[in-house]
């Protein structure tokens, strides 16, 4: 812990060595976060770069009170979110449709690699990708997502349902086995 605080302190002093150390410690995980929110690896790289520059320039505002990983992750998510906002890709989708449910067997799950799932997520439309990531992976509530993205909770639910539907179809197409069940809601 002392080492970590020293690294942060050195980073604040502008030490390239300390910055490289910090980067190497968190970059793989944060790149994973960026990949989930980006449409492809190039965009994820851009976001990671921008995110880490922000981390280093705003490191003084981190008070060692919470989790550093949580703080840095939040920065990466915000950068990714901002990028999508700037690209005006947050088109509204308000319909709450009912979609078929899918159940995956453990065998199927075991077969699916994380990289493949990442690819499926990246192929989602930006808004669905955002909502799915925030709800399913980050564990945010629809209320929090609605506030974060300036949308209604209903829209958030609808987008999540649509994202799930697309993903299920794609999982089926990719990995074959799926069982259609009846309705579900967010």
């Amino acid at each position, binding site marked *: 812990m002392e080492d970590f605080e020293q690294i942060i302190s050195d980073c604040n002093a502008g030490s390239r060595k300390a*910055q490289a150390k910090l980067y190497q410690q968190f970059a*793989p995980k944060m790149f994973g976060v960026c990949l989930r929110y980006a449409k492809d690896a190039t965009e994820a790289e851009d976001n*990671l770069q921008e995110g880490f520059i922000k981390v280093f320039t705003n490191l003084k505002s981190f008070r060692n009170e919470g989790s550093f990983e949580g703080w840095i992750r939040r920065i990466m998510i915000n950068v990714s979110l901002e990028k999508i906002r700037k690209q005006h890709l947050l088109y509204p989708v308000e319909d709450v449709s009912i979609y078929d449910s899918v159940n*995956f067997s453990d065998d199927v799950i075991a077969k699916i690699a994380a990289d493949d799932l990442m690819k499926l997520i990246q192929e989602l439309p930006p808004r669905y990708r955002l909502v*799915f990531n925030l709800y399913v992976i980050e564990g945010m509530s629809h209320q929090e997502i609605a506030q974060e993205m300036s949308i209604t909770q209903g829209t958030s639910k609808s987008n999540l349902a649509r994202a799930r539907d697309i*993903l*299920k179809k794609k999982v089926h197409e990719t990995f074959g086995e799926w069982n259609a*069940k009846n309705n579900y809601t*967010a």
Partner: protein
Amino acid sequence: MKKDKNLDELFRSKLLNYEQEPPAYLLENILAGAAGARRKRKIVLWRIAGVAAALLLAFVAGWQFNSRNEIGTEPQVIVSQQSAPENAIQTAPEIKTLQAAPENIQLAAVNEPAKNNEISTKSIIKNSVSGKINLMAEALPVVSNDETILLKPLKSLFGLLKQDLASANLLHQKKLNDLKAEYPEKSIDQQIIEHNRQLTMAHTENTRKGRWLIGAQVSPEYNVSRSSHSQVYASNMLNASSNPVDLGGGISVEFKKGKRWSLQSGVYYSGMGQSSGNSAYPNRNLVSSDYGTEHGKEYFNAPVNIDSKSSKMIMNSAAGVIEFSGVPSGIVLGTNLEDKSLASNAVVVSEARFIQNFEYIEIPLYLRYSILDSRFDVEMLGGFSSNVLVGNNTYMESNTGKSLVGSTQNMESLNYSGTLGIGLKYGLSKRFYLNVEPRVKYYLNSLNSNSSVTYKPYTIGVFTGLSYEF
């Protein structure tokens, strides 16, 4: 829901802690970017510090120059340079000569503009060490006309140059000049810009805040009588003949908000007269035609009654009932036995005119709107006034002269009037204005409370005066 969780769990479990090594080149980019951001932040801080220091320096310099280089009251001048031989630095005595006769210099500048190689203040100062320095009067190409503000930096420059030139060592002096020239050069530019900015801001602020004008006006007032009476009253009434021209005037206070609208009030004195006479009456209705008057067969038929309450002599006039304080001297009364058309006890049989004078203090509230806003302003004005009666006298004018004989009964002590007018305003200077305002004032209620009398005159006046803006 369970099925959803199945899918969600699939993605969460596989991706929550998903890690992937980013490309190696990213680190270098990030470190370079972070260093650049730090540099940028430092540069911004240095820039802020630099601007603050420059402002402080300019302020101190301006203050110092202004405080130590006060030179009399020269006209607006700008320093100009004429071609001159090298090393011909003019020392203080020559400059003093120029100072002593600024008017001549100004004249020369006007007559011979082409001969002078006029250059900007900036370049003048740079060359001031080796060049022959002259002063040339010229209007400065700036927004302001405020001489004191504009002269300050130039005075500072002049004083500075004088001091520098008076130094003993030429080389040393040159070095000093080179150093100092840079300094006032910035100071002058900055000061002129700053002063112009301040003036513009002050003007804008003034317009926004509002301005005050105080003024004094006088006016001849021509009163036009408008009255109606009950039949009985009118049958025993003096004939209103003419309306004397009175004098009015007062002090006005005006608050101007914005460019167009202003509100005006003040205190005005307003005199109003009503002249009535007993007209010559033909003697056809007379039982006896000889009243012993000098007019022979005529008599004057101003009916007179005695007030039952006050036991005073009263006469009906257009403005109301005139109550005499006593029987006026020089009046000849006769009984009214002869003229059956009159319901009065007596008639004034000698020629006389009765002048009722009413004096009012008027407190107006006018709204003014500027139609034309330039050196010659044209404004529309309209509003209402409260008029307090402060004088009520009746005079009798006869062959024996003019004397105070009484007053008019039942005059209202407070009246209201409406006013419409046109204001013509000519700017004599920046703050003084000449005003000429034709106005029509109309009384909204009857000035007399007698139920048989409705007396609502209107007044036409041309108010002329001066106003001062601050």
